[in-house]
């Protein structure tokens, strides 16, 4: 069954990369085969957890040995404005005996305990490699538990060894489509209800966007899954419009919601000034097309005009400070590209980027935008990045946490663009935050000090306090 599901997500008509492939290539899936001894990145279970854990009032129970949760819980920056139950780590902590006798009974008892003690609106149960190997029928246990306990108990079938984090994202989306979306009817609907897919409220980013939507009069009926509530996610099928944020990962949710409930979707981004404005405009236009009051278009333009002029005014002070500063962007993700225009608007120069995760179209787009001179690296080794930074080919690197020490050990400023960061970069205010963070890092006085030679490495005449010869 999982195999069928995998073939289903590998064939995604809504994904242009996918459709550009041959039939045979498509069957192999989206991620490149991993090379033993030279692989990096999370597994499918990791990806599923990233996509679903932001549903804050649900319990998230991991069925597996301790490694899957014990080594990983409490390490993500997604935030909730209410229930904090999602931050509690639950696992069946399978022992040797559970593996010999099967873990199904323990799993049921664990679900029951959680329901009795925490009374969450739903329990998500994550399949992992070991129970998948020994044949624990998690779907059956969940079905049984749901009936017995009178609560949705949802099996998330994404054991780590089926593939990458990105695949896990998709499988999580499928889980929501199969078990959650469409199971609860909202009390009230409005013509401006939207569903946002693929926004995880990292560092509270959604909260930089929501006030603007409120002002325009657009209601987030359901966010999948940042600051999410189980019942809101279950009501997503009554939205008038879906916005898919992290397009490569969860476009399957947007497309299937269109298929099943006729909800149109668009791919948008909250990162960067022009992308943010485009997103708001598209949202308003598509809602009006579906019968919302035309007035929201004017209100949207009003908000955009005000916010854009405000944001450029606020970025102005950074311009002289950023003059001539070169940024190395090291994150294949599309979202960072939305920020590029804004960063350049603030006076920064982007010297190059990795395109490991980018599609062919992305690369063409970058080439068109930046010209042939611009560096695009497909597979830049950490050693080469280190050397570039050491040779001062950039003033700051922006990347995910994984590569932070490449920059820091080269004694070059570094800024986190990934999920572990603590500052929200979405929306208009987010771009100002980003520039403030860059400025803080670039202007920190430590850089000169940490590059000083140790006293024992100094030649006698180059000591700072040495008298110049002949003085």
């Amino acid at each position, binding site marked *: 069954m999982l195999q069928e599901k995998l073939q289903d997500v590998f064939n995604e008509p809504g994904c242009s990369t996918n459709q550009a492939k041959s039939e045979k290539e498509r069957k192999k899936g989206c991620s490149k085969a991993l090379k033993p001894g030279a692989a990096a990145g999370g*597994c499918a279970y990791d990806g599923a957890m990233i996509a679903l854990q932001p549903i804050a009032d649900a319990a998230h129970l991991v069925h597996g040995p301790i490694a899957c949760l*014990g080594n990983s819980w409490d390490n993500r920056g997604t935030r909730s404005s209410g229930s904090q139950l999602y931050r509690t780590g639950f696992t069946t902590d399978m022992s040797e005996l559970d593996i010999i006798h099967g873990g199904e009974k323990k799993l049921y008892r664990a679900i029951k305990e959680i329901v009795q003690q925490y009374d969450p609106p739903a329990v998500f149960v994550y399949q992992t490699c070991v129970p998948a190997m020994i044949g624990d029928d998690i779907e059956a246990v969940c079905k049984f538990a749901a009936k017995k306990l009178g609560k949705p108990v949802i099996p998330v079938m994404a054991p780590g060894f*089926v593939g990458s984090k990105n695949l896990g994202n998709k499988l999580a989306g499928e889980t929501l489509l199969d078990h959650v979306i469409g199971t609860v009817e909202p009390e009230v609907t409005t013509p401006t209800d939207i569903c946002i897919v693929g926004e995880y409220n990292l560092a509270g980013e959604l909260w930089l966007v929501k006030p603007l939507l409120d002002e325009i009069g657009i209601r987030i009926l359901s966010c999948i899954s940042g600051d999410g509530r189980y019942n809101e996610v279950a009501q997503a099928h009554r939205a008038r419009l879906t916005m898919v944020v992290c397009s490569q990962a969860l476009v399957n949710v947007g497309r299937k919601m269109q298929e099943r409930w006729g909800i149109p979707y668009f791919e948008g981004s909250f990162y960067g000034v022009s992308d943010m404005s485009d997103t708001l405009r598209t949202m308003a236009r598509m809602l009006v097309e579906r019968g919302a009051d035309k007035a929201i278009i004017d209100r949207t333009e009003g908000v955009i005009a005000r916010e854009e002029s405000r944001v450029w005014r606020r970025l102005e002070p950074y311009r002289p400070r950023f003059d001539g500063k070169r940024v190395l962007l090291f994150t294949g993700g599309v979202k960072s590209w939305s920020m590029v225009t804004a960063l350049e608007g603030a006076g920064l120069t982007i010297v190059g980027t990795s395109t490991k995760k980018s599609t062919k179209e992305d690369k063409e787009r970058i080439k068109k935008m930046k010209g042939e001179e611009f560096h695009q690296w497909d597979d830049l080794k950490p050693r080469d990045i280190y050397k570039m930074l050491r040779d001062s080919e950039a003033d700051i690197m922006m990347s995910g946490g994984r590569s932070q020490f490449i920059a820091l050990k080269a004694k070059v400023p570094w800024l986190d663009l990934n999920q572990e960061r603590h500052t929200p970069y979405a929306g208009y205010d987010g771009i100002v935050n980003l520039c403030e963070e860059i400025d803080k890092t670039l202007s920190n006085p430590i850089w000169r000090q940490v590059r000083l030679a140790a006293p024992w490495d100094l030649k006698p005449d180059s000591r700072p306090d040495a008298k110049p010869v002949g003085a």
Partner: protein
Amino acid sequence: MGNIQRFPHSAKAASTNPLKMSQPLGAALAFLGVDRCMPLFHGSQGCTAFGLVLLVRHFREAIPLQTTAMDQVSTILGGYENLEQAVRTIHERNAPALIGVATTGVTETKGEDMAGQYSLFRQRNPALAGLKLVFANTPDFSGGFEDGFSAAVTGIVEEVVQPSETTVKGQINVLAGCHLSPGDVEELRDIIESFGLSPIFLPDLSLSMSGRQPDDFTATSLGGVTVERIAAMGASEATLVIGEHMRVAAAALELKTDVRSVFFDRLTGLEASDRLVRTLSELSGRPVPAKLRRQRETLVDGMLDGHFFYSRKRIAVALEPDLLYAVTSFLADMGAEVIAAVSPTQTAVLEKLKAATVMVGDHSDVETLARDADLIVSNSHGRQGAARIGVPLHRMGLPMFDRLGAGLKVHVGYRGTRELLFEIGNLFLSREMDHDEHGHAHGHPHGHPHGDGHEHGQHCGSGSCGCSAG
């Protein structure tokens, strides 16, 4: 290993806010204390990614850690090919001195024959004879972090150490358990060298994990004990074995080399430090250096100044077993009452714990047991529960991702004990000062040894104890 069922185990089916970390992670840490090493998990890539992130957050260092990237097919058909390819790739790209392979739940459930795979690999790859390869069986589904660390150290001893006909005067081995931070190892080196002895630490995290500034990019561990030094351990005069979980490795070392072992169950506390110093003095035949004499004096003085604040304080401790033993013993030494000692795994050292309740459990058990405690001592994962019940948390162990310098904390020897004594004592002291300032306004007594934990909680938002960090 994890099968001695002597102590009550949390009755829950759902481990909630786990304290336990997996065996392969412990093995990875041990391997990271060897110079130019690449630890390799034989399992799916997620096993490695999670372990990597946890160690990065704790040490704030780049962590070399690779994976055999098992997928569904190789899991079922057998993982030898992935393993061989991984080892060869790592050898070609990074040329490490040692590759430390740790199995995971995936390969152990399948039942991969690691001894067989080792022989097969050696047979098929004669060109790689110079590469040291250590295979450790570290299933995720039994034991925990400490057991994995122990398995890796034992594996290194068996693969690398050479017996020796001769003895190098003044050279001693130290099997350093995972309850010792890089800072602890550095402190021990100082102490041992001050007797004119030359220690070989296995593993030596102080050289690799304490914040290196490399001249060039390295994909393997940088620093740590070299393979050559490990090989030379057979020529030492004695082996200091630090921690119960190092006993298996110690036995392997003794069997191989005939170097006698001196066992230390802990190095935190006055008497424990005295024993270390006495042993070193005997081994070296030298008097105790003036520096250590001064340190002992100041520790005694610190105990006199500090005992007021420790007496009958009710403390819950949840840490890896050997650290749990060291900390609870130290607290008992200071007159505090350990109301609960929670261990992630069943292990022999729990027999020796002095605590009202000893159990195998998780952070949610601590939350229940510590409701009227004055303090919780645990890793950073304890902060959510501590905040909920309003009890301050003193962070120790791993992971400690919300504090700088987690790897450099020192709690061994006279100086380390003194540091720990002051850190915990200051938490009590500051709360009693708070009570003096606010107690009357709130109308409840202060400085009472059995004070109500919930009321304590209300004074606990200043951040000094970390409760507000949740």
